[in-house]
């Protein structure tokens, strides 16, 4: 099917639509998203609302930026997306871009959980309040910074 995207105009997508039964906090009515690759950039993805062009979120794999990231996901959260084992779980954090892109942050308190096999997702608010809603992608001590900047 053809969809309108926020960043790349109209695109053909054949599969991979993910259903969010509760939408997202702040966007509770939105039900269908698709994860798109960012051309020439392996660090980020875009989660595009299939029904509303202007709703597209930049996503990052949290472990690329914080290898120590630990999430304690209760079984009932996994059940809500139909997962019985963590192997079929894909996790992303929503990125907030800043004017100075190296100051960008990601929301590690409420990751996006996706059951790839069945195409179901949700944004899960972790109960461990130690996690940061605005965790800097690039810390001074973070090697990612050195490996990440394009020439």
């Amino acid at each position, binding site marked *: 099917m053809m969809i309108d995207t926020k*960043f790349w105009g109209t695109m053909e997508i054949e599969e991979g639509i993910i259903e969010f039964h509760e939408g997202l*906090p702040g966007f509770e009515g939105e039900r269908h998203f698709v994860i798109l690759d960012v051309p020439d950039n392996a660090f*980020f993805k875009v989660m595009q609302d299939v029904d509303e062009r202007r709703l597209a979120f930049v996503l990052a794999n949290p472990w690329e930026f914080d290898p120590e990231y630990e999430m304690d996901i209760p079984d009932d959260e996994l059940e809500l997306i139909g997962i019985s084992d963590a192997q079929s779980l894909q996790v992303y954090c*929503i990125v907030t871009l800043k004017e100075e*892109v190296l100051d*960008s942050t990601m929301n590690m308190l409420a990751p996006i959980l996706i059951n790839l096999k069945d195409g179901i997702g949700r944004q899960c608010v972790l109960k461990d309040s130690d996690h940061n809603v605005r965790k800097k992608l690039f810390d001074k001590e973070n090697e990612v910074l050195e490996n*990440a900047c394009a020439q």
Partner: protein
Amino acid sequence: MLVLSRKLHESVVIDDEIEVEILEISDGKVKLGIKAPGSVAIHRKEVYEEIAKENVTALDSGTLGIEKLKKINKK
């Protein structure tokens, strides 16, 4: 808003399936026990609102230019 008074260990039942019990009262805090079907989402209000607010900020920030991401790529 329905306003009810409950004493320690008393409950309210909502919609036959949701029960909220006062488990503990101390130090200006009330500990609530909530029984509900797994399909019912329950959040601390201020946390949920903060997530919603950050989602909106994140959404608007994407408009700043996904081209900015070109600066960040794996070597």
